[in-house]
């Protein structure tokens, strides 16, 4: 613990000294030559008079001015990242205080220190914010948006986003105006209705950055998360429209009915236009990814560039950039992921997480610093009225809308859900930046607004952010359930979908399911065929899902198999009894190799539904990989240790093997712990592989070796099942292995030399 405090204090000192030179070059650009630099920034001798005596050749010179800007930016980013590091090292701290709070506090601290030292403060440059800091966060959110829950709740989300924000803005604006009138002090005298409405439209928008930052740490169940988060994303359109609308009105001075009507029209244009722009760029990205099979290295670049272009293009026309970004990410994802290589996918994922994490850190720090920078105009009435009204309007809005929405929902929102949705409506940096953008001439009360907004942001982030976690525990809100997506669930979920569509057809009911089904079929028959290269375009979702599971198992096998263990020579088979026809499922090494080929060729198993969308997902995956490494080691040990006599029981025992036990006992991160266990049972099958030159009486056709390894799953599984066709073979069937005791020695004696060659070949190809 002492170490941590030491680290923190070092970081703080570092930060302060780092910010001093940074701070001395505030957001605007003073002329460096005129700027009173601290003595440690000397210039090169630029203006040496020509008649001075010849000076010695300067061996070491310091030239700071030319690298000043990049140096300072890099320094800021470095310090922010170090802070993040420090924050997570302290174990208990991060579970009590959400990261956003800490970052704001650090920003405050830094700002205070800079001010004390008399330097000018770097303020949150709105251009920087909107064009550089915000897009990565939104893209990260949009790209990894869980489509299924989002789509299922889209109606609710839209209602909350549009109607809710409108209600918040108007209610708060009107009441605030009333308060200002009543209060009657000189400070509030200049605040008219339009200004109030403008202010409240800025202050009432739920902020995606803040929501993400806080909600990710509390792991509530999917529905609530997607409701609040989806609302924060979609209300951008409303906010943009209202902001521009009221700004225009305030500057024009009067409002006619036509203007109001145009405002409504503007909303639709902004929202739908944004989505359209995003979708177009998304399709472009998908098309481009079709042709990248020869230049895999720049694949991630296309994803980022197209998305960013979508955002910028939308901003050009004052459309909703956020919606464009979301639409782009959502549209391009299924196609791009089917086309790009595994490594590109990993790159994209990690880059997005990295950038968004960094952006978030910087935003909160800058928020803190800007708070110290001011200028502030504090008015108790206004500020407290703002906070109270924010809360009040949010609660009323959510309650009222839920009452109305629940009539149309199948899964109703309970009171607890409503509370969390209302309480989770955090405001953040977007509100602040929008307030900052107000022009001071038209809005003389800009400082007042700024102060109030900052207070609201602080209040929501600190008070609501910190208390939401204990409240969630107190109210026993359902937590995120373990995503133990099994094949069976997948099969039956799809089956149920078809059944429901069918029953609706029988009833003559044309609900949204009907149209969704039609859309899905359209997608499958046209879009997928054009946009996805190769045979993946024909792949139904179940296959992709199955591939994904297989892939992980194959990875496991491949890695454990590279220990050079070629001995398992038993005609093992995982078999399930069917009463009359006892069919046998044989897994061979061939299958492993096929699967490894698939690894290389087809990769990108979309983890659309299985990856959680939290920033912390990556951490969990690392832990999982560690688990798997250990599991592999254990498996190898097991394998070496127990030989033939244990083959009968090994697979069954492996149910209890370390990974499963580990998965069961590890509490806390419940997201994916149990998945390895589900996956473990099946790879058992593949590890006990049998060479193709299996005992002759097995009836397995030697055509397996003859099979040229095809590049598709179909081929791989063909070999798998091809071996399973030997129905007349061995009637008795065990759970995981079909072992005939007498066969053992015979099998051991023919290890199958060509297997080794092929495997080496595989290795080499794999390395590519």
């Amino acid at each position, binding site marked *: 613990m002492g170490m941590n405090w030491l680290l923190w204090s070092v970081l703080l000192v570092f930060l302060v000294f780092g910010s001093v030179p940074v701070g001395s070059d505030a957001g605007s650009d003073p002329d460096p030559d005129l700027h009173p630099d601290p003595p440690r920034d000397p210039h090169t001798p630029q203006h040496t008079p020509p008649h001075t005596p010849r000076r010695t050749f300067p061996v070491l010179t310091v030239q700071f001015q030319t690298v000043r800007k990049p140096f300072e930016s890099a320094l800021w980013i470095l310090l922010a990242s170090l802070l993040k590091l420090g924050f997570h090292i302290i174990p208990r701290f991060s579970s009590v205080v959400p990261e956003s709070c800490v970052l704001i506090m650090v920003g405050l601290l830094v700002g205070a220190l800079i001010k004390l030292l008399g330097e000018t403060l770097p303020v949150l440059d709105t251009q920087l914010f909107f064009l550089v800091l915000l897009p990565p966060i939104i893209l990260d959110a949009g790209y990894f948006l869980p489509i299924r829950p989002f789509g299922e709740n889209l109606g609710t989300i839209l209602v909350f986003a549009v109607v809710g924000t409108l209600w918040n803005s108007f209610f708060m604006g009107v009441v605030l105006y009333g308060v200002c009138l009543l209060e009657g002090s000189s400070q509030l005298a200049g605040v008219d209705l339009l200004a109030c409405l403008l202010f409240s439209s800025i202050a009432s928008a739920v902020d995606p950055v803040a929501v993400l930052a806080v909600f990710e740490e509390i792991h509530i169940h999917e529905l609530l998360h997607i409701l609040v988060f989806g609302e924060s994303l979609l209300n951008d359109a409303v906010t943009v429209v209202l902001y521009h609308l009221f700004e225009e009105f305030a500057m024009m001075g009067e409002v006619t009915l036509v203007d109001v009507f145009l405002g409504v029209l503007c909303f639709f244009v902004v929202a739908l236009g944004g989505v359209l722009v995003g979708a177009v760029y998304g399709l472009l990205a998908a098309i481009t990814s079709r042709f990248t099979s020869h230049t895999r290295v720049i694949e991630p670049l296309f994803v980022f560039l197209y998305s960013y272009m979508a955002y910028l293009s939308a901003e050009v026309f004052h459309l909703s950039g956020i919606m464009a970004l979301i639409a782009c990410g959502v549209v391009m994802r299924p196609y791009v992921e089917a086309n790009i290589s595994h490594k590109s996918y990993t790159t994209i994922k990690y880059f997005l997480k990295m950038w968004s994490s960094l952006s978030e850190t910087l935003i909160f720090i800058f928020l803190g610093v800007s708070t110290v920078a001011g200028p502030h105009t504090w008015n108790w009435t206004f500020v407290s009225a703002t906070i109270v009204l924010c809360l009040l309007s949010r609660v009323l809005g959510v309650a009222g809308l839920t009452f109305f929405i629940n009539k149309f929902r199948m899964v109703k929102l309970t009171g607890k859900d409503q509370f969390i949705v209302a309480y989770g409506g955090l405001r953040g940096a977007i509100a602040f930046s929008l307030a900052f953008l107000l022009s001071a001439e038209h809005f003389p009360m800009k400082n007042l607004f700024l102060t109030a907004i900052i207070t609201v942001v602080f209040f929501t982030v600190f008070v609501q952010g910190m208390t939401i976690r204990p409240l969630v525990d107190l109210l026993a809100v359902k937590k995120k359930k373990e995503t133990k997506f099994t094949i069976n669930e997948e099969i039956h979920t799809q089956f149920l979908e078809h059944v429901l569509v069918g029953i609706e057809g029988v009833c003559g009911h044309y609900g949204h399911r009907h149209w969704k089904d039609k859309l899905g079929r359209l997608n499958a028959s046209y879009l997928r065929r054009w946009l996805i290269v190769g045979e993946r375009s024909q792949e139904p979702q179940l*296959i992709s899902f199955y591939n994904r599971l297989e892939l992980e198992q194959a990875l496991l096998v491949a890695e454990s198999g590279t220990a050079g263990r070629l001995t398992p020579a038993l005609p093992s088979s995982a078999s399930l009894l*069917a009463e009359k026809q006892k069919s046998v499922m044989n897994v061979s090494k061939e299958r492993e190799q096929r699967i490894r080929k698939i690894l290389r060729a087809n990769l990108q198993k979309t983890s659309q539904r299985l990856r959680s969308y939290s920033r912390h997902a990556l951490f969990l995956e690392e832990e999982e990989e560690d688990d798997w490494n250990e599991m592999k080691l254990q498996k190898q040990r097991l394998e070496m240790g127990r030989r033939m006599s244990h083959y009968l029981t090994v697979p069954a025992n492996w149910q209890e093997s370390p990974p499963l036990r580990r998965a069961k006992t590890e509490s806390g991160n419940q997201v994916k712990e149990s998945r390895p266990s589900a996956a473990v049972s099946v790879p058992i099958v593949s590890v006990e592989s049998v060479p193709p030159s299996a005992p002759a009486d097995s009836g397995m056709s030697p055509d397996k070796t003859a099979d040229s390894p095809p590049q598709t799953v179909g081929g791989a599984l063909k070999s798998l099942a091809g071996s399973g066709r030997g129905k007349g073979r061995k009637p008795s069937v065990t759970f995981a292995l079909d072992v005939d005791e007498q066969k053992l020695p015979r099998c051991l004696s023919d290890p199958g030399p060509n297997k080794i060659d092929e495997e080496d070949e595989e290795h080499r190809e794999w390395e590519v």
Partner: protein
Amino acid sequence: MGSSQSAQEEQEYRALAERTGFSLDQIRNLHKRFKHLSHDEETLRKEDFDEISDLTPNPIRSQIIDAFFDKRNFGGNEVGRVQEIGFREFLTVMSHFRPLRQNLTEEGIERIRREKLRFLFNMHDKDSDGTITLDEYRSVVEELLSSSAAIEIETATAIADAAMLEVASVTVGEMAPGQVYEGITFEHFLEILKGVEIEAKMHVRFLNVDTTTVRCGKL
């Protein structure tokens, strides 16, 4: 139609409402639909279902249609198939898709869940022996994948096998070497689908059944 007939119908409707839990309006709508499908006859036959155009692209249409003629879904304890069904059976089958009512107790929800899952189970268990065997499961997966062109039978088999393995591992756990996994019983079925909230998803909005917009020409 004399007034006596409609009164009799009303009484029938009331009895049916009691039995299946639909409201009178819903029953009226569904009866209209029934008559439309059966061309005003008293019973529906398989061929009538074949005429529904919306069912054609559905990969599991034959299973859906069979479900209507499966005695196990009629609420009694009988087994077997029938050739034609009346309105009462039609309604009983449809009642499996009623949405969950608001204020149900835990047992009530559990009971409904079992009913709905039983319906699905019966769809898979074609030979009515109480278990879903590997072959039956395989055919389920095959049908699910039948809508896309380039799927080979072996793929479906492999998936079904893996799924079966999973069921065995989840429900039975460790198996002795000589033990054999018979097939998925209803209890196992319930267990593996614990995570999926079937009772919330398996519903159709019946009041929106608008028989006037049913397109006759397309049949």
